[in-house]
């Protein structure tokens, strides 16, 4: 109890100290102290043609040096009798009072101007706007449809979304996350469509993030996830502005971070992870076929190798005689059991996949060839793996990549290993057990407190129009039921039907 009292007193003292520092008036000495050992920080003293002296404090790596001279120095030098603030017309100018304010503005690319005569401090925003150009999305490539993708600049990203949704209802709330990174976060949603409860949950979650470094979208989602230990992402990451605009239109929330080209979309369901923007480009029958193929591929990816192990180790009765003939021939001289053979081959495939992903493009192609052909063929010829397994591993590896979401692709790999281990102990029963556990887990997940396995569980029949089958767009007149949007209708005739 005494310790608690002591701790409270210490905290109080600390807060007072913090307040004192925060509200301490800005002085040149304090700024010099703050920028000590920062070689890129500059403090320059000049005089106007009228004899009035002023100081400029800035970090030269953060500001636009070319504009410094023409927008600040030259106008100030020739200011004459004019007040400093009136000379600078091309940039936004803000009066500052405390040292904390001064530091924050300086670190976000402002030039601080000190008027010696009046002892006033001004911050002129002169941020270096260096950024890469808008390019094609590399993580979610599509044949048809918009090609632009997000960049590292949040303003540019918000612009790309706003251009697609030119409505005043599109709200963008600003937050800051990361005590050291002070990353700018913007939460976008359409007022009047998005469920206010979900917006409030997201707002609260972002505000609660307490960490020093928030460098990219995954860092933020890690603090906002409802289930930290799950293999499945509870926020969808995308670098496509069209996906964000579509999600916003449905009533979801988009979270953008500065310095990262990926946006977070929530709430999502397990089935969203299998949807591609191209689904809405293709004819609905083709889109439905491709979508079903993705679900099937996911199932193949997690069960094909475990099934091989279960059948060749325990359930030879279930193998058609023609295939058994091939399997027995293929496995007759192998030194490993089906489980070890599969495990080794899967690990090798993962090594090749990781290597080709991390290496430069040209090298990764070589690694692909060496891995796929040389190692595969050599393993069979050396008698380490059966031909059948090489084929199955190939199919399973390719099936993995049919899932459009890269994070799910990686989750698939881990799931495959887990089910493989169960299959090696209990055969088909182990696989069934693994799949039941997976279903139970998916059923228990949530994204921004909304059910992750909807519309299957809980059952929302209406949303099945855009689940396994992508029904024609004219049929999708209502927004997803699981999002509990304010406006249900997507067509104007039903405006009143809320």
């Amino acid at each position, binding site marked *: 109890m005494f310790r608690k009292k002591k701790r409270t007193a210490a905290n109080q003292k600390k807060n007072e100290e913090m307040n004192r520092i925060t509200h301490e008036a800005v002085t040149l000495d304090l700024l010099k102290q703050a920028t000590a050992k920062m070689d890129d920080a500059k403090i320059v003293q000049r005089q106007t043609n009228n004899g009035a002296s002023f100081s400029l404090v800035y970090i030269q790596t953060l500001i636009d040096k070319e504009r410094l001279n023409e927008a600040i120095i030259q106008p100030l030098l020739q200011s004459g009798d004019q007040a400093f603030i009136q000379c600078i017309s091309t940039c936004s100018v803000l009066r500052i009072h405390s040292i904390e304010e001064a530091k924050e503005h300086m670190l976000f690319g402002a030039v601080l101007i000190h008027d010696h005569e009046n002892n006033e401090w001004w911050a002129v925003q002169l941020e270096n706007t260096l950024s890469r150009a808008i390019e094609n999305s590399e993580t979610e490539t599509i044949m048809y449809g918009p090609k632009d993708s997000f960049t590292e600049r949040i303003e540019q990203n918000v612009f790309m979304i706003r251009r697609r949704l030119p409505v005043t209802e599109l709200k963008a709330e600003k937050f800051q996350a990361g005590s050291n990174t002070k990353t700018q976060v913007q939460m976008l949603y359409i007022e009047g469509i998005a469920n206010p409860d979900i917006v409030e949950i997201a707002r609260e979650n972002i505000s609660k993030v307490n960490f020093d470094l928030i460098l990219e979208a995954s860092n933020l989602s890690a603090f906002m996830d409802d289930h930290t230990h799950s293999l499945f992402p509870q926020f969808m990451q995308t670098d496509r502005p069209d996906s964000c605009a579509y999600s916003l239109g449905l009533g979801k929330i988009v979270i953008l971070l500065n310095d990262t080209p990926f946006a977070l979309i929530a709430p999502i369901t397990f089935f969203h992870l299998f949807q591609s923007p191209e689904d809405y480009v293709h004819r609905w029958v083709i889109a439905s076929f491709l979508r079903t193929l993705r679900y099937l591929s996911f199932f193949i990816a997690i069960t094909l190798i475990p099934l091989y192990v279960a059948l060749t180790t325990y359930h*030879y009765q279930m193998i058609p*005689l023609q295939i058994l*003939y091939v399997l*027995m021939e293929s496995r007759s001289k192998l030194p490993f059991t089906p489980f070890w053979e599969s495990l080794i081959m899967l690990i090798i495939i993962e090594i090749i996949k990781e290597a080709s992903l991390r290496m430069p493009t040209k090298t990764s192609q070589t690694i692909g060839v060496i891995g796929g052909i040389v190692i595969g063929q050599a393993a069979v010829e050396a008698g380490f793996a059966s031909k059948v397994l090489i084929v199955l591993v190939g199919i399973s590896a390719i099936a993995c990549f049919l899932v459009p979401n890269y994070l799910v692709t990686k989750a698939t790999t881990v799931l495959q290993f887990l089910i493989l281990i169960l299959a090696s102990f209990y055969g088909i*029963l182990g696989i069934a*057990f693994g799949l039941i556990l997976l279903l139970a887990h998916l059923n228990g997940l949530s994204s921004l407190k909304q059910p992750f396995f909807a519309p299957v569980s809980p059952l929302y029949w209406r949303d099945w129009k855009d689940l396994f089958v992508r029904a024609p767009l004219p049929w999708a007149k209502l927004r997803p039921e699981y999002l509990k949007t304010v406006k249900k209708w997507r067509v104007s005739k039903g405006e009143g039907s809320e």
Partner: protein
Amino acid sequence: MKTLLSILCILLVFSGCSSPYVENNTVEEIAPVTFWSLNQGEGGKFKITTLVPPVTDEKKRLFTLNVDLLKQGKKEFNLKFYRELKNGQLRMLIINEKLAKKEIISLIDTILSDPDVSPRLFLVLVRGSFEDFLEEERKVQKNLDYYLYRMFRHYERRNQGEMSIVNLHEFMEKVYSPYSDPVLPIFKADKDNFTYEGTALFNENKYVGLFNKREDQMFQLIANDHYLKNLPIPHLNVSLGQVRSKVHMQVDDQFKTLNIHVKLKGRIDEYRGHRNILDRSEMNRMTHDIESYLQRETAGLVKETQRLKIEPLEVGAHTLSPLVHPMTRREWLDHYEKMKVHVKYSVKIEPLSL
């Protein structure tokens, strides 16, 4: 953890697995036999024969044992061979005619109750020595067992109309149903040949006779596949192709008469007679001759079943009707034996097929 364990327990109980331990059946360590051939042995025992190693390209040996019990045979095979013989891929059970005449139901029951064996196992009767055929043929044909299985599978699929192919499930279903008797294909085996002889007839579970090749064609048309790819009638110098039949059977209320009306459709595949079949009246006469021939043959076939007091044609099923207590098998067969049989054929020959 508690939830996990309870889910596991529920899974084990509901899937019928009393033990969580699974049997090790690593494919390269076992020898899954594809057929067993059963024959009469010495001293009241029976002979069980198989080819090992099965399903591989290795050189094959013929294993024969004289045993009292099937499972005893299985165990003793294992003691003789370097891989464990498993019967989870048992696809054919070849039974000798002489053994079938005695009693085969207990043997088939043993196989039926083995959870490893699929009920789609083909049952075949053999006249002659199948072992001799195997001994000679394995020198020429490396995967003889596999090819035999493929042959049965081929004729089973889509009722090819060439031979009666019966699996374990179908056989037992007919054994235990009161108005039908099972049939099996019967083959003649000697050193050089393995030839289809016709359909073996059973009285409940005992082999009592057979339909020869000619009768077998009628049997396929009226009771089995209702289809024949080819129906040669040498007597009329004609061969019909793509023959399909629709059979309508009627038993009168007093169980005195059986009327069989068969609508048959086909085309002339081959004709070596002297009639001008392009002429309509000649063609009508020819159709009439075919009908008379088929009626005669079918009536003969039905009479044979009456004589043997067996029900491979499942006529008894036509006596069943709502609100009427079904007869016992014995009562029905007593009626059936004495029944008058009228057979009528309506043959429709598709034009311009020649």
